[in-house]
């Protein structure tokens, strides 16, 4: 299984400013200390090996969109955030090379940041494309049509030429979708959200659990999440806030924290946790610090096998 992150930011797309880029370049020049590089490749090697990720790169700013390559002939995509535009263009190149034009979408929920990429999903205009939209919400079609009404967008949904199918998934049932087993889990979020557990034919399990608040007064209910995450190879988890924020000023905003994610993964004996749905006000240094702190918290509280903690960024690929 290959997991490809096209959008990892929460709530609102962000882009680095000119000032932020200037600071990165200035710091890189200082770190280079007057060194000369023979060519661009050698300079890139310096950036990769000697600068931190935040100094030499960026976590990106597209809203949630994650692709799973599960060894099947169809596409599997979680959410339609602004990262979907890049995925759509990339998939068209793959289609030209012979990839079947079948797209299986799985929506966590219908809030704007998770569907805003769909009006820019170019394969929707391809009459040969088949687009199946799976959701726990029965009103998924209403949400997608509504955002393309004239008051919001110039191209109405009915102008799209692909074949569409909307599938409402039932929690507690195993669903077989093109050779992948899919389970859903209702999560606490405004209008509800759904987590997904994908198991490929070779037994690899990936959890997609975003926009999920774990309420302080309902900790006993987390047993169901631990079961849902059980022994997963990768858990992609909403880690938008610090624990303190999630139980104080940002309580009931529908999101979780990095350290609750670690605890759930520890208890579930998951192998890798991907920090996801990054706070849009965080810059790259803030996200990198949060990643380092989460790695440290995992070490401090570990009582079994190590949990690998990675930080998702736009463009990250994880092979399981």
């Amino acid at each position, binding site marked *: 299984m290959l997991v490809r992150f096209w959008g990892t930011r929460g709530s609102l797309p962000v882009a680095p400013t000119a000032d932020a880029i200037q600071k990165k370049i200035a710091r890189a020049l200082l770190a280079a200390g007057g060194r000369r590089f023979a060519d661009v490749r050698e300079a890139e090697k310096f950036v990769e090996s000697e600068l931190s990720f935040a100094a030499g790169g960026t976590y990106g700013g597209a809203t949630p969109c994650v692709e799973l390559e599960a060894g099947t002939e169809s596409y599997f995509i979680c959410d339609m955030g602004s990262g979907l535009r890049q995925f759509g263009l990339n998939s068209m190149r793959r289609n030209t090379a012979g990839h079947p034009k079948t797209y299986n979408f799985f929506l966590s929920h219908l809030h704007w940041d998770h569907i805003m990429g769909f009006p820019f999903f170019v394969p929707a205009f391809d009459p040969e494309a088949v687009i199946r939209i799976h959701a726990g919400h029965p009103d998924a079609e209403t949400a997608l049509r509504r955002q393309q009404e004239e008051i919001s967008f110039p191209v109405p949904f009915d102008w799209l030429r692909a074949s569409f199918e909307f599938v409402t998934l039932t929690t507690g049932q195993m669903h077989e979708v093109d050779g992948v087993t899919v389970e859903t889990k209702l999560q606490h979020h405004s209008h509800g959200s759904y987590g997904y557990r994908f198991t490929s034919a070779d037994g690899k399990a990936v959890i997609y659990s975003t926009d999920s608040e774990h309420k302080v007064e309902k900790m006993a209910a987390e047993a169901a999440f631990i079961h849902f995450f059980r022994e997963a190879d990768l858990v992609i988890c909403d880690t938008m806030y610090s*624990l*303190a924020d999630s139980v104080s000023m940002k309580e009931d905003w529908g999101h979780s924290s990095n350290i609750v994610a670690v605890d759930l993964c520890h208890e579930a004996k998951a192998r890798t946790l991907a920090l996801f749905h990054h706070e849009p006000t965080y810059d790259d240094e803030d996200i990198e610090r949060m990643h380092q702190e989460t790695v440290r918290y995992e070490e401090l509280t570990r009582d079994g096998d190590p949990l690998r903690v990675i930080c998702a960024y736009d463009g990250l690929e994880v092979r399981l």
Partner: protein
Amino acid sequence: MNYSLGSREGAIIVAVTGRVDESSWVAFGIGLGEAIEKARETGVDCVVIDLAGLEYMSSRGLRVLTVARRDGEEAGVTIALASPNEVMREILSISRYDKLFTISETVEAAR
């Protein structure tokens, strides 16, 4: 995890030892509930949680602290933390709970 209740002038002391994690957070919550109740009954407005013997606390324990703080607010009782070890100091910092609770070097200094 074990806990014991004590008191000093103006405060109920909860001394906690071991780990507070997925297997012990419920018992820890019961202990804090007892301490708040005892404070209310004796007319004391502060519960100090003595962390000197605590190995570490996961998010489970931290969230129990939040529940206790809310219960304490209803009873007019403040919850304060004292004497965390280095591991616990790191966890309080990573979780940003050091911004939610007053943390003192010693039980005597806690208020």
